[in-house]
């Protein structure tokens, strides 16, 4: 019953002034950081971190986790309205969110995003509070070979998400992976394609690639368009409740995506960028009508947005259990814990349980606040889709360029933004799947690093990928995704 006592105590702490204020401040700051390209949650949190020193541990941590969660949601705002994924976590939101805006359904899309984010966040945090000791055991089942297989699973989605020529999609995906091989190799100090230039040492930044591929490419395209982003003569009002309803009507998609997010969030090095693509791919794979995806299918927004908020719960597991951060944001959060004298490890579930529960509850309450802000304030931004593109384009280009440079104060990132912007424009125009390209960029490095490490662990034998039951299950999943579409119709024919 110590748990219940701690929970009650945590509730009291959370409700005592000024803690609720810091939760709201954190959410708002996070939303801004998330919506602006190039900032994102980790940089935003790092900037705020030293400011939290006078606040005391509880308020500081509530502020930081609220920023984390606000940024996950905030990324979707720009993604939906102007095709700019503020963070990698919102990249898949652009696939259907932005087409919805073009159809004049921006308000609906924003409402769907707020609802899915909230539900995804609440579900996973509740799970985290309920079963955190078991979760850590599940996380530990995953090792290097499993990470590799997860990445391959994601890459096999290329076949699912590609619309049009599969060959073009494969070329696009492989091209994305190829670009990520620039820079230092993952398992040796070999410098690949750097021309002796220190700026290229760490290769291209995938956020810069996303900004180029989505934001710049789209701005080049719509600069030739008269009027606003939304097609003319569409009534923007009145579809707010529709959005909420649409989201709630797809409980399976929300559930599945939230837990995919939570699960992937717990794996180091991947996080929300990977999970939103995988959830999107899964929603599309299991859909009766996958052709609708990419043309403003609400389920696409639901999948992406519930998964990225779900990631938070998962990413907290290794961070607070062992002090092992799986992503940039959790690394900063860990810095915050340490800065305020809280040591990750079993004591956070023992002597400090009330503190731990307080910031989990802060996340829970924060998600409800996200819903309110999202529904009542953010949806008003829908008018942006009716502003003439001549005004939108230059401002978005400026934001993208400065955001790109801010990532690492490295001009290589600006080159990436511009280069892939031009390339992305041509790829969209000639039906080379941009989703495939982005999957390649995001998952390529994870796949390579873990493949090479797996082979190091096994002394070069590939059997390491099928010896454990878990890896075997993953292999079977990959085979189903790759060959299911070919086998299924034949199987049905034989059976009938």
């Amino acid at each position, binding site marked *: 019953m110590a748990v219940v006592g701690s929970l009650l105590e945590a509730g009291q702490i959370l409700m005592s002034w000024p803690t609720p204020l810091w939760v709201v401040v954190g959410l708002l700051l996070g939303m801004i950081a998330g919506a602006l390209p190039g900032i994102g949650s*980790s*940089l935003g*949190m*790092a*900037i705020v*971190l*030293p*400011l939290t*020193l*006078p606040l005391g541990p509880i308020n500081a941590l509530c502020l930081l986790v609220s920023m984390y969660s606000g940024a996950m949601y905030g990324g979707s705002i720009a993604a939906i309205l102007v095709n700019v994924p503020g963070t990698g976590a919102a990249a898949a939101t652009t696939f259907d969110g932005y087409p919805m805006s073009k159809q004049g359904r921006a308000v609906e899309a924003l409402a769907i995003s707020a609802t899915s984010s909230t539900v995804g966040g609440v579900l996973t945090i509740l799970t985290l509070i309920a079963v955190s000791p078991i979760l850590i055991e599940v996380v*530990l*089942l*995953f*090792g*290097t070979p499993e990470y590799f297989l997860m990445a391959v699973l994601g890459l096999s989605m290329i076949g699912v998400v590609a619309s049009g020529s599969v060959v073009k999609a494969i070329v696009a995906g492989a091209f994305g992976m190829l670009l990520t091989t620039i820079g*230092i190799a*993952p*398992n*040796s*100090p*070999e*410098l690949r394609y750097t021309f*002796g230039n*220190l*700026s290229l*040492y*760490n290769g291209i930044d995938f956020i810069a690639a996303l900004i180029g591929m989505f934001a710049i490419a789209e701005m080049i395209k719509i600069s030739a368009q008269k009027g606003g982003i939304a097609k003319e003569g569409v009534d923007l009002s009145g579809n707010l409740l529709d959005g909420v309803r649409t989201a709630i009507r797809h409980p399976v998609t929300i559930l599945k995506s939230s837990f995919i997010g939570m699960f992937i969030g717990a794996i*180091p*090095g991947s996080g929300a960028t990977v999970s939103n693509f995988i959830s999107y791919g899964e929603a599309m794979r299991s859909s009766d009508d996958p052709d609708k995806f990419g043309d403003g299918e609400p389920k696409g927004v639901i999948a992406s947005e519930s998964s990225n908020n779900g990631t938070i719960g998962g990413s907290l597991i*290794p961070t607070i*259990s*062992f*002090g*092992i*951060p799986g992503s*940039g944001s959790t*690394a*900063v959060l860990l*810095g915050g814990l*340490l*800065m*305020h*004298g809280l*040591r*990750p*490890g*079993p*004591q956070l579930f023992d002597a400090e349980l009330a503190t731990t529960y307080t910031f989990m509850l802060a996340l829970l309450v924060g998600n409800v606040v996200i819903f309110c802000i999202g529904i009542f304030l953010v949806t008003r931004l829908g008018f942006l889709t009716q502003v003439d593109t001549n005004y939108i384009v230059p401002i978005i280009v400026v934001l993208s360029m400065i955001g790109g440079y801010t990532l*690492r*104060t*490295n001009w290589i990132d600006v080159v990436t933004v511009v280069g892939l912007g031009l390339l992305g424009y041509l790829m969209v125009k000639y039906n080379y799947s941009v989703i495939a390209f982005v999957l390649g960029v995001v998952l390529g490095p994870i796949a390579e*690093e873990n493949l*090479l*490490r797996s*082979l*190091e*662990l096994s*002394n*070069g034998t590939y059997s390491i990928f099928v010896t454990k039951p878990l890896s075997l299950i993953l292999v079977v999943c990959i085979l189903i995704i790759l060959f299911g579409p070919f086998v299924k119709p034949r199987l049905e024919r034989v059976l009938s």
Partner: protein
Amino acid sequence: MTSEDKCHRIGRRSFLKYSSAMSALAITGLAGCTGDSGSGEYPSGDLEYIVPFSEGGGTDTYARQVIPEMGNELDTNIEIRNVPGAASLRGTGELHHSEPDGSTFGGFNPPSTPVSAMVNPPDYDMQELVGVGAYARTPFVIVANSSYGVENMADLVSRYQSGDLTTFSGKSKGGVDHVLALTMQGNSDYDLAWENYVGYDGSGPAVQAVISDETPACISTDTAAEGAVSDGRVDAVTCLSSEGTSVFPDLQPVTEEDFPNIDYLGQLRRCMFVPPETENNVVQTLTGALESALQTDAIQDWSEETGNVIEYGEPQAAEDAVASAFEQVPENVDLDQVREASN
């Protein structure tokens, strides 16, 4: 927000300066706005401190505590600028190419940055940098999965020799962990006979691999291993610095088990430097500011509360840490082997 009004001129980027000064403000009641910075003397204007790592990392955390205090001591504002990438060689290079007038200084952690420079030589000579001082020390430790019940370093060595254990791990290949592992393998007094070094993307993931028994043991920084050790899933085997670690005060250093001293690799010494040919009086001013900043209540309290160790070292200690890495590493490890060591 009243202290903002007190400043006659809110310089550019004052938001950050102000923000990082706020902690100091809260504790000491002093803001870095007293105005009179003297004419013709150093420092005559704002300074810049280069952190060659991203925001939120260990080096950045230290900088954001120590630098505002140094600013107070010098009566000026010091901007912190993060120039991450290239295993800290990029930011360090920017420091090297800066004007040697004391307006720019920066920090990095030998032997880590020198090892990266030896493996992939950049276009500047890091040894030309002038030391300002050292402010902290982060020792490396070896941890092992607790199911093996490894007692100490001698026990670990015998298990690798008997073939009981084969795989050893740490951060990515080509970094300081890998070089440490090769040193202990090649040095006949250690004879840590691992067959297979597996590199992970940081100390955290390496420790996680030890927790899940993907690899039996790894090199880690003391702080990164703390949570896992207190959880009981991994054991701290030994400390690779002869000076021990405050995170695990009872942990025996390798030197106490009569293994040779490898301090040139076994601990990160967190140091500050200025560009080559910076004048002596500038260095002395900065060193003085560093030394007194580390003694302020603000820093001492922070260190005590958070366990981030503060340890002042003379300018010579900073330069020695770099020099000894450049001297001893090539003597003890075949760098070509490091570059090619991958299967």
